[in-house]
C-alpha cells in the first residue's frame, strides 16, 4: 500500500466531490427538509401526511417487491438449474439463448409490452381463449398488482439467472458427479449440492433486483397507476402535480429505508468476499 496521502486523495477527489454534491448533500438536505415545517421549525407533519395518504402504497410497494423477488429467485433457480444439470444439450442451448433477451429491454419498454400483452383484449387472453383454456367471458385484465409482478419478474429474472448460472458453472463438477453416482436425483443435487454453493451469488443478485425494483417508476405508472400503487408513482405525482417537495422528500426517505434493508445485506456479503480474497 502506497503511503502518499495527498496523491491518493487527489486521485479520488473528483469522484468524491461529485458524491458530495449529488449524494451526501442532497441526502442530508432531503432528510432536513422532510422534517422542516413551513415556519422553519422541526416537524413530522410531512411524514404524517405521507403516511396518511400513502401508507397503503408503502405496504403495496413492499409486498410487490418482496413477492417479485421471491418469484425471480424461483425462476432463476429453475433456469440456472436446468442449464447446469439438464441432459438435453440442444434444449439447454436454446433456453440459454432465449432467457437473456429481457436483459437489455428497458423497464419502460417492458411496461409497454406488458400493457399490451396482459390487457383484457391483449394477446395473452386471446391465446388462452384460442386454446380453449378459458371462455371469452372469463377473460380479465392483469393490469394490476399481478401485471407489475409479472413485468418485474420477466425483466429481472434473466439478470439473476445470468449471475446464478455463472456461479453454478464454476462449481467443481466432481461434486455433482459424485453425488449423482451415489444415486442422488437431479433435484436433490440441485438443492443439496449446487444451490448451497451458489447461495451467496443468488442472494446478492436478488438484493440488487430488490433495490432496483423499488426505484422503478415506469412499470407501476403504466401498468397500475391507480391507488394502491408504488411509492415512485406517488413521488412523481407529488412533484409534478402538487409541487409538494416536502411530502415527496418524506416518501423518498421511506423508500430509502425499504431499500436499505436489501442494500445492507449486499454490502455485508460483498465485504465478506473482499475479506476472503
Amino acid at each position: 500500500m502506497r503511503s502518499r496521502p495527498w496523491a491518493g486523495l487527489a486521485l479520488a477527489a473528483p469522484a468524491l466531490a461529485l458524491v458530495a454534491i449529488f449524494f451526501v448533500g442532497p441526502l442530508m438536505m432531503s432528510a432536513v427538509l422532510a422534517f422542516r415545517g413551513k415556519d422553519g421549525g422541526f416537524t413530522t407533519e410531512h411524514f404524517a401526511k405521507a403516511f396518511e395518504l400513502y401508507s397503503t402504497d408503502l405496504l403495496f410497494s413492499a409486498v410487490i417487491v418482496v413477492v417479485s423477488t421471491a418469484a425471480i429467485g424461483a425462476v432463476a433457480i429453475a433456469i440456472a438449474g436446468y442449464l447446469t444439470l439438464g441432459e438435453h444439450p440442444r434444449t439447454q442451448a436454446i433456453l440459454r439463448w432465449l432467457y437473456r433477451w429481457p436483459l437489455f429491454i428497458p423497464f419502460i419498454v417492458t411496461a409497454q409490452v406488458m400493457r399490451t400483452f396482459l390487457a383484457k383484449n391483449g394477446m395473452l387472453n386471446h391465446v388462452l381463449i384460442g386454446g380453449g383454456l378459458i371462455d371469452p367471458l372469463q377473460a380479465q385484465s392483469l393490469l394490476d398488482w399481478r401485471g407489475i409482478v409479472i413485468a418485474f419478474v420477466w425483466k429481472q429474472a434473466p439478470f439473476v439467472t445470468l449471475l446464478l448460472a455463472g456461479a453454478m458453472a464454476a462449481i467443481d463438477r466432481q461434486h455433482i458427479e459424485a453425488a449423482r453416482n451415489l444415486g442422488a436425483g437431479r433435484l436433490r443435487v440441485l438443492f443439496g449440492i449446487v444451490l448451497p454453493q451458489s447461495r451467496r451469488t443468488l442472494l446478492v443478485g436478488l438484493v440488487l433486483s430488490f433495490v432496483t425494483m423499488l426505484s422503478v417508476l415506469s412499470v407501476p405508472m403504466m401498468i397500475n397507476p391507480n391507488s394502491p400503487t408504488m411509492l415512485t408513482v406517488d413521488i412523481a405525482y407529488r412533484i409534478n402535480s402538487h409541487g409538494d417537495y416536502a411530502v415527496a422528500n418524506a416518501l423518498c426517505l421511506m423508500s430509502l429505508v425499504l431499500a436499505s434493508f436489501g442494500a445492507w445485506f449486499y454490502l455485508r456479503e460483498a465485504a465478506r468476499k473482499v475479506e476472503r480474497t
Partner: protein
Amino acid sequence: MTHVYDSTGWVRGLETVAAWLLGFLWVLPLLYAFWTAFHPAEFSTRLALDAPLTLENFVKAWHAAPFARYFINTVILVTMVLAAQLVLVTLAAYAFARFEFPGRGVLFALVLVQLMIMPDVLIVENYRTMTFLGIKDTILAIGLPYMASAFGIFLLRQTFKTIPRELDEAARVEGCSPLQVLWRVYVPLARPTYLAYALVSVSYHWNNFLWPLIITNSVESRPVTVGLQVFASTDQGIDWSIITAATLLTTAPLLVGFLLFQRQFVASFMRAGIR
C-alpha cells in the same frame, strides 16, 4: 455421456418440454411485440399466418414523436456519462485500492452507502441543485448525478485489488509514475471489468426514465424513454400496433447491440465478478 443415474425417458421428455415452454413463455411478449409492430392493427390480437406485413406502424410511430432527436439525445447522454464515469471511477478505485490517505476508510464507506441508495430517491434535492446551477432541462443535468458511480468504484476497486503487487512494483522499478502504472498495468488487466461495467452503464442510462422525466421538459434534451411516454397517454388512443412499433424503435439499438456482443457481454459479466 451415459450416466448410471440417467433419468428415465419420460422424465427427461417432460423436462425438455418444460424447458422449451419456459423459454417460449419468456420470449413470448417480445414475439408478440414483433408480430403486432409488423402487422396491420386488425391483426394485433389475432394470429393469422396470411396476415400481410407492413412497416406503416413504424412510420406512424416515428412521426408521432421526434424520435430522431430523442435518439441523438440518448446517444449523447450515454456516451457522456460513460466517458466521465470511466475516468472518475478508475482514478477513485485506484486510490482506494492502492493508496493510503487520511479518512480513506470513512470515504470508502461513504461510497458504499451511495451504493445502497438509488439516485432516484434524491430527485427532489438534485432537481434544486440543477436549478441552482442553471442547467435544468439539459442533457448534462440528466447525466451529472450519475458520473461518480459507486457501483463502478466498488467493482473496479475489487478488480484492482486482485492484481498482483509484483506487477505494480516492477513497473515502478522501471520508472513509471503512479498514473503510468495505472494506465499500463491496472487498466489493461481490468479490461473485462471495464467491458461489463460499460455495458451495464449504457443499458442503465438508456433505460433511465424517472430522473430524465422530471429534469427535462423539451424535445432538445429528452431521451428516447421519455419520448416513449407519449404513447402511454390516452390522448394517443390505444393502438397497440403503433405502441409496439414505437417500443421496438426505442429498444432496437440495445437489442442489436446485445445480439452482436452477447457472447463478450456474458463472458465479461462472469469474469468481472459482479456479485
